[in-house]
């Protein structure tokens, strides 16, 4: 069992996970066990600069904001695809670079079109 190459990797992964989650776990345990939860109506009310909040926030808002978010999402996912390419970058030939260039330029052209259409004007 100890001989499989991935065993040390698993140990390191668990250690990293534990290192991250242990303080959080301690804090949650402390909050549950020692300090009592004391919610009340005023404490749970919506904070609006010290006033009681009138009206609700579920209101129509401009569609530009939604499109802004979608365009950001595209490039976010593109970055995820670039990661394996960047990791193996030294071992790759020219053809891989050209393929990745096509991928990047395709999305850049999409952004240029959106910009020209004026989707990104915020006001």
């Amino acid at each position, binding site marked *: 069992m100890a001989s499989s190459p991935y065993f040390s990797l698993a140990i390191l992964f668990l250690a990293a996970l534990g290192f991250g989650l242990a303080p959080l776990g301690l804090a949650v345990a402390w909050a549950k066990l020692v300090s009592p939860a*004391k919610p009340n109506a005023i*404490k749970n009310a919506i904070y609006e600069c010290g006033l009681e909040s009138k009206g609700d926030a579920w209101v129509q808002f401009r569609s530009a904001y939604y499109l802004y978010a979608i365009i950001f999402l595209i490039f976010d996912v593109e970055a995820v695809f670039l990661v394996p390419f960047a990791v193996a970058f030294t071992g790759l030939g020219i053809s891989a670079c050209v393929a990745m260039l096509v991928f990047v330029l395709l999305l850049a052209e999409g952004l240029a079109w959106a910009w020209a259409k004026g989707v990104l004007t915020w006001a």
Partner: protein
Amino acid sequence: MAVEDKLKIELGKQGVFVTTVNEIYNWGRKNSVWPLQFGLACCAIEMIATTMARYDLARFGAEVFRPSPRQADLMIISGTITKKMAPQVVRLYNQMAEPRYVIAMGACAISGGPFKQGYNVLKGIDRYIPVDVHIPGCPPRPEALIHAFMTLQAKIDAQPLTGTERPRHLDAAAMSEFPVPTQGAHDLEPPANRLVWPLPAPVASGENCG
């Protein structure tokens, strides 16, 4: 098992640190008291001057002024609380997460100060919410605010984790909801929160505290 200080210092020199959960708990909380960004009047300017370069409040771990009450554990009431602002102050205090502390900075926050003869001025915030440290002065010097921080840190340090002396936030029975006064036709209703208003002993026995 109380650890004598001499032994603790001795061990400390050799790099061994002996402590109790209570000390670490209080040490952690007292050195990172995050104040609420909450300035009312002239004392707020002295509070801002305290966070600036000359009287650096960052040395006490308190220069992070959080705008939202959810992330703050100290409310520095710096300035005059008028009757129009009092409900907002009490609501903000309620919306702060426990453990929460209050520093009444300046004469106006403690007792209405020079404006106590005004018709729209609340004569001291300790009529509605419990106050931990009072700083006299109008406005108190930045060093006086830092001295108040040290008083507050000493008070936090002395809080035991269990037993009757334990702080409000560890005590399930302690009051954690402070009713917000409403604005009536002539004055705030109720004029004071009887459970909180610390009337001095001889007068409290008198019939005036209703």
